[in-house]
């Protein structure tokens, strides 16, 4: 896979997460992701693999990633000063434009990531939508502020509604389309709750070796075709396709 060295335009804390911006003028679809790593050209062994991140936003000139520092890869990215290395935008993003009414965007934890960009796109298309975000606690308030229209739920009730992201949603049947991103367990719960809603798209999360279909590492179970690669056929899947 080809990696592109890009300038870091900014790294800042957003609540407990990190927002990193870099110039990218090519096309990106909401829901697509990039494989990214701190600079180490031609390659670094520490860590060895690049990491997948959804695009948080893209205005045509600047792309941004929102991530949680978990291990070595995200730690080095959070400390990046001059350049990082990114792949081209990968995977299949959200299908938009088929809604015939209000849409609901459900983000769990750092699963909020793709929704800044999706929300921007839906605004452009004039699609009415609500954003509901679920967090563990208020440590992520900074992110919520970046979604002024969003309803927020926290597990400990320290911000917004106490409970899960689904607890904060009123009647799901009001919506003609649901978009969800978060831990796979949350996605499974959304899928169950969204039963009957035709357009329910889930952005799944699997460990990735390559991001371009080569390793077969990132598969998810589908009803019709067994295990398929989420980096090529996803990361966004129609809920009904998944054998969850």
């Amino acid at each position, binding site marked *: *896979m080809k*990696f592109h060295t890009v300038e870091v335009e900014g790294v800042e804390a957003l609540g407990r997460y990190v927002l990193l911006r870099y110039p990218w003028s090519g096309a990106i679809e909401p829901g697509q992701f990039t494989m990214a790593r701190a600079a180490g050209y031609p*390659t670094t*062994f*520490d860590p*060895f*693999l690049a990491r997948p991140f959804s695009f948080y936003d893209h205005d045509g000139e600047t792309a941004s990633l929102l991530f949680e520092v978990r291990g070595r890869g995200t730690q080095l990215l959070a400390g990046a000063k001059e350049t990082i290395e990114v792949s081209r935008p990968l995977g299949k993003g959200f299908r938009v434009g088929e809604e015939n009414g209000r849409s609901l965007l459900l983000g769990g934890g750092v699963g909020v990531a793709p929704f800044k960009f999706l929300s921007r796109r839906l605004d452009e298309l004039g699609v009415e939508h609500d954003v509901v975000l679920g967090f563990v606690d208020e440590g992520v308030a900074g992110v919520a502020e970046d979604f002024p229209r969003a309803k927020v739920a926290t597990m400990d009730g320290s911000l917004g509604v106490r409970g899960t992201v689904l607890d904060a949603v009123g009647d799901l049947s009001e919506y003609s389309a649901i978009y969800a991103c978060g831990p796979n367990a949350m996605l499974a719960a959304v899928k169950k709750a969204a039963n009957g809603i035709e357009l329910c798209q889930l952005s799944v999360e699997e460990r990735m070796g390559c991001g371009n279909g*080569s390793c*077969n590492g990132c598969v998810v179970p589908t009803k019709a075709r067994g295990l398929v690669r989420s980096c090529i056929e996803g990361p966004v899947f129609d809920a009904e396709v998944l054998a969850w």
Partner: protein
Amino acid sequence: MVMERRKTDVGLSVELFGRRLETPLMPASGTLSKEAVEEVRGVYGAILPKTTTPLSRDGNPTPRIAETPAGMVNSIGLQNPGVDEFMKNLDDFDLGVPMFVSVAGNTVDEFRELCERVSADERVFAIEMNLSCPNVEHGGLTFCAGASSVEEVVSACRGVSGKPLSVKLTFEGVVENAIAAEASGADAITVMNTMPALTVDADARKVLVKGGFSGPAIKPVAMRAVYDVSGAVDVPVIASGGVSTGVDVAEFMMAGAAVVQIGTVSFVRDPEEILGEFEEYLRKHEMSASELIGCLRGAGSV
């Protein structure tokens, strides 16, 4: 055109099975998807898709990938659509360079049938026999478990195939197995496959991925295996294991490889860069690719 420049510039080409490969690089089986094939046009002297098996295989559940220091462990489990579907779509991998096909069976018969089947196809230049799969007739040990099972399966395939056969071996017993493969009619030995390994999720205290270990970390072991095998057999050796730079390619060729496979590193680098570095090495040292082969053992060493 990129390839044109190469041909005239430094001596990149090598000969394998009587045919000229434009570069001594090819993908390692299972590390290049059809979606990524266009990206490597002009880089590889031969092509090699993921191993195919008699029937489709779903492979193992996730997680299938774990990172390790300078490497990774995978447990894909030979997921593939089965040989029928595979051969139907073989042209997805056609870059106009010689096409290898990698096969694996669970029994000697399966191997024989696969080889017969694949050999009948004109598009196929050569076959790589992936012996790192469980030999169900021998209690789940792989076909690499000993020289006798190598002999049995290679002889069976030799009997039905007129195509060049490269036998892909793991590290354990590699020299003994290579000698057995050559004696049974192998035209080349691919050295080596991933190594058995285990990773753990320390917080969950669960096995994360139990599977095959690859990447730069294993390069010194693969180098040793290539060096030892190329000293023990006369057929060409195809190297696989931990290549991450063009200098690594040169080193594997010095150690005895006629062709070098690019595997895991292609997930984190563009193979084109690796070829570029290799060309730079040749230019700096005023050598051609084929002069490098085996030069650690004498002749070509400085």
